[in-house]
């Protein structure tokens, strides 16, 4: 059985679509800015589904009016980590929301090996399952 037919991880918005072009990313950013969100950039080379907190690339960008600022920072991040996962996140600071309103991947490594299902036999006939990323067999920074 193929568990990873497209060879792509699917996390966040638009992840079942083809990669967004820069113009499309800029439009999404502009939409978020119009809603008053603050964009931030995060990257990782450990895309386990439960790895919620990726590394921040710079500070969240508050008080922006135009998408060009975020795109500039994204270009910096891509130059620094060309083979990492990079995602954009929009923080909605509205009282009582105060959380991430949008999040989507904007950069992927060329080859995504996916995940292995690990089975562990327990007492009796109990089975325990866990998900293991093939990429994490290598040390951090050498994975993709």
């Amino acid at each position, binding site marked *: 059985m193929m568990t990873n037919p497209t060879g792509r991880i699917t996390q966040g918005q638009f992840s079942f679509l083809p990669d967004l072009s820069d113009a499309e990313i800029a439009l999404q950013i502009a939409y978020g800015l119009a809603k008053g969100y603050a964009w931030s950039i995060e990257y990782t080379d450990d895309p386990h589904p439960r790895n919620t907190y990726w590394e921040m690339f*710079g500070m969240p*960008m508050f008080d922006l009016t*135009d998408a*060009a*600022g975020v795109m*500039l*920072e994204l270009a910096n991040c891509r130059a620094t980590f060309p083979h990492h996962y990079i995602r954009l996140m929009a923080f909605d600071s509205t009282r009582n929301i105060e959380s991430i309103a949008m999040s989507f991947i904007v950069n992927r490594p060329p080859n995504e090996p996916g995940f292995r299902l690990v089975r562990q036999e327990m007492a009796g006939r109990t089975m325990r399952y866990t998900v293991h990323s093939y990429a994490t067999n290598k040390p951090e920074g050498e994975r993709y």
Partner: protein
Amino acid sequence: MANPTYSIPGTAIAPAAAAPALAPMAAPTTVGEVLAQSQVMAVIDELDRDLVGLVPVKARIRDIAALLVIAKLREQFGMAAAMPSLHMCFSGNPGTGKTTVALRMAQILHRLGYVRKGHVVSVTRDDLVGQYIGHTAPKTKEVLKKAMGGVLFIDEAYYLYRPENERDYGQEAIEILLQVMENQRDDLVVILAGYKDRMDTFFQSNPGMSSRIAHHLDFPDYSAPELLQIADRMLGDGSYRFGDGAREVFDQYLRRRVAQPHFANARSVRNALDRMRLRQASRLFADRDRPLTRDDLSTIETSDILLSRVFDMPAANPQPPSA
């Protein structure tokens, strides 16, 4: 935005017809059409109307607007559409309207579509330069990101460069600024402002900055009649007016004030008017039982002006108001 062009099934609201205003946007062929579409003339007329004097500055702004309009038309024919460099330097004495004109400039550039948002981010050295190593670059970049799509107005830009301290972080800010001014020309417009002589020294020691700025605008000092006109506007905006003979006395006040040190053009006029309002208020305050009319409350009398310290001085300086 208010009328979507789509319809949600089950709702009664029909989609608005595709905005008819968009149709004539197709291809403006005359200067008039570009101006009509961008409504830039409204801003320029407003500039003419609201700002007293500043003739060379207004002429220059018209030139820049004309250049942008023609560039728009050239674009229609696929001629070299290279974005003209729009970074500017405003130099002039204090209170000559540099900040005000920068705000208008942003509006003009926005109407012509050369900056996407048209907001002005006004900063000084403190906002760009950090306190310790590694603090400057993120700080400058953050400001630049905020200004993207609009105008970055750097007031008293010469403070960025401090030649007496070779380890000053200002140089780092200048380098980042230069890089963005060159590479992101269509994302933001940088306007430097400051006093003329110090700006000149600044450019001499930073030739890279000078060569990246296409437009140097000099703001001349206001003449006495222009200052008086400015005073009239400021009073009018605050629903005040000069009483009998007060305008002439204020004219004399201005002539004496100009000769004194630290005269800051329109700003000094504003301060003088604020002090006169104070004196008017205390004059009215002294008379507890008098019923005050609308006229009383809005009139600046001769006595309010003559109390100024400036009128005590000419005894030492017997120069008649001739200038």
